[in-house]
């Protein structure tokens, strides 16, 4: 009896320790390569850390604590950088992520619905082809579209030339300066953060990249909607449009909202794509928070300012995360209801 009890308490003790053992490797590694750097980053964000301090780090004799000067400099645009305004970049960053999702999700749903039509010919071919943008690495997509938008030799201007020749009879070559033109084509579209042509070029390229993923998610959700719902609706005399709004859309919501949130966070920090296409230009009009952070580290080499900027990005991302988390939770409840 006593022996049984002791072995019982032994397993109990083991079970209490076991989860921590399973977590140990992850936390050991993250301690060194994640948490330590995070704390270090917060500390040097209050210093004048620059290139000459790279050798000795925190032990540098002339490294000074300068309080929250780096943060103030960022917020008041006091950095000696041309065309930098934190709040404009922040606004553009939010608008960039939002405008992408607003276009990608409905397009993805509509195209998935189109391909889900009973009796449509060549469905499999379309499905196979439409997924291609998802499978090409975004890095390659960005470099290819950079070439497509080249002013003199790019495919986009050549396509526009061909179209204008075919339909308007005007064969003059079109040279749109996609990445250089600083004048916003639609003035006042986004107050406070003018959208240059480069933004529209990136929107076109990212639309090509973004909707197929939404379409894949929507297809999966569409196929789980029971067909009898539609049959019952059409017996009751519902039109195709009514069926779409009253059956398809509400039943797609639980799948599409997490996908939209995923798309939003992905676009929000889409470093490779933006950096490879415009590098944040022209005149920093397409700069995201991450691309500017990269510029601070790589080109300007103000590590203290960059650290402060990283802390700010972290805070912004935290707010975004809390909001999106609330949205997805809301969907979970919806699904359970």
């Amino acid at each position, binding site marked *: 009896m006593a022996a049984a009890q002791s072995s019982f308490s032994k397993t109990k003790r083991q079970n209490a320790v076991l989860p921590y053992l399973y977590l140990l490797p992850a936390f050991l590694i993250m301690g060194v*390569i994640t948490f330590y*750097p995070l704390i270090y980053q917060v500390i040097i964000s209050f210093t004048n850390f620059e290139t000459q301090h790279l050798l000795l780090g925190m032990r540098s004799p002339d490294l000074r604590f300068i309080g929250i000067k780096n943060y103030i400099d960022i917020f008041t645009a006091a950095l000696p950088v041309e065309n930098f305004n934190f709040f404009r970049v922040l606004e553009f960053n939010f608008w960039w992520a939002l405008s992408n999702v607003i276009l990608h999700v409905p397009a993805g749903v509509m195209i998935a619905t189109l391909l889900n039509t009973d009796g449509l010919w060549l469905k499999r071919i379309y499905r196979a082809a439409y997924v291609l943008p998802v499978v090409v690495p975004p890095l390659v997509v960005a470099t290819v579209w950079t*070439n497509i938008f080249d002013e003199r030799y790019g495919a986009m201007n050549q396509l526009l030339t061909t179209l204008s020749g075919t339909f308007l009879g005007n064969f003059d070559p079109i040279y749109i300066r996609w990445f250089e033109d600083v004048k916003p084509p639609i003035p006042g579209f986004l107050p406070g953060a003018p959208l240059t042509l480069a933004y529209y070029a990136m929107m076109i390229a990212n639309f090509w990249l973004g909707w197929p993923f939404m379409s894949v998610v929507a297809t*999966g959700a569409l196929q789980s909607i029971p067909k009898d719902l539609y049959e019952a609706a059409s017996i009751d005399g519902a039109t195709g449009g009514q069926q779409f709004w009253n059956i398809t859309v509400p039943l797609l919501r639980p799948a599409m909202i997490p996908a939209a949130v995923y798309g939003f966070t992905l676009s929000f920090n889409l470093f490779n794509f933006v950096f490879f296409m415009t590098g944040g230009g022209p005149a920093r009009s397409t700069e995201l928070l991450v691309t500017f952070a990269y510029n601070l580290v790589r080109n300007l080499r103000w590590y203290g300012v*960059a650290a402060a900027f990283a802390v700010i990005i972290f805070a912004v991302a935290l707010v975004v995360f809390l909001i999106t988390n609330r949205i997805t939770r809301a969907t979970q409840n919806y699904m359970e209801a």
Partner: protein
Amino acid sequence: MTTSSDTKNPIIRFMNMNTSGQTGGRSLPLWRQLLLQLTALAILASVMFPIMYIVTLSFSSKTTRPSQLELIPKEISFVAYGQVLDRPTGNPVTFAELLRNSFVLSLGVGLAALGVAVTAAYAFSRFKFKMREVLMILVFIPLLMPAVGLSTPLYLLLNQVQVKQCAEGTIAVQPITTCADGKGRLQFNLRDSLFGVGIAMTASALPFAVWNLKGYLDTIPRELEEAAAIDGADANQTFWRIVIPLAMPQLAVTFFLGFIGHWQEFVLTWLFLSQPKDYTLAMTLYNMTGQYANSVPWNRFAAMAVIVALPVAVVYIALQKQIVGGLTTGSVKG
């Protein structure tokens, strides 16, 4: 098209996925069919436009820039591919080295993150313990920090590990030992090596791997584990014999997502690596476009783009179902 035996015919399945109903293709009036076909074809054209453009360009032997739009290859020339494989950049690095670097880096980071993440994901999914919520937030919080945000401290950290050849002929491994005179000839710098960059990249790969695996483990029913426990298996045996085999598909997907994520990693490699022999395909592609690309013929760039994209695309298409399923379970379960 209407009988059920036809659905086994792969050609019919290929032509039209839904052959289950009695309606077949007849429920759709011809005018609607044509309208929808027109829309579908227009979308197809927009999807294929950049792909055909870059493929056509890569098969061209012309080194001059294209003066007009060509979307269908007029010639199939492998000159550009040959040149890229022979001498990818102006730097003294061969294509084989670039490929090896990209491959080793992505493979290493993918596997390292997976191996460490799986036990953590299991702990979060199956155990109730003190501080569970806090620890989980600690693991997921780095997801909010882009890789560039941690680059400076990681640079400094990895830069401390150096192997030096001292004047008196001994080898010093910093930070454990240093040369007597404090100097020495640099033999190896962890920061300036693929291994070091791999360590830094694991930092960003790990939280995602934990998140993705935990979402999947949550969906595995516990009955099997309970049955194993009744049969006398302890927690470790259950983990290795029951959970790991069941989670295999998701392990593969998580590994692959880590692999492609780092196949195109650019930030940390570009910041940390200085020697051409360590360069990766993604870095080379960047060198061939934009401001650095003035001297690079476009057909070579196109060939390089196809080469970088192809392996990822092939594996992605093969694993497509699992990847989409995995991503959505992960995101719904949070």
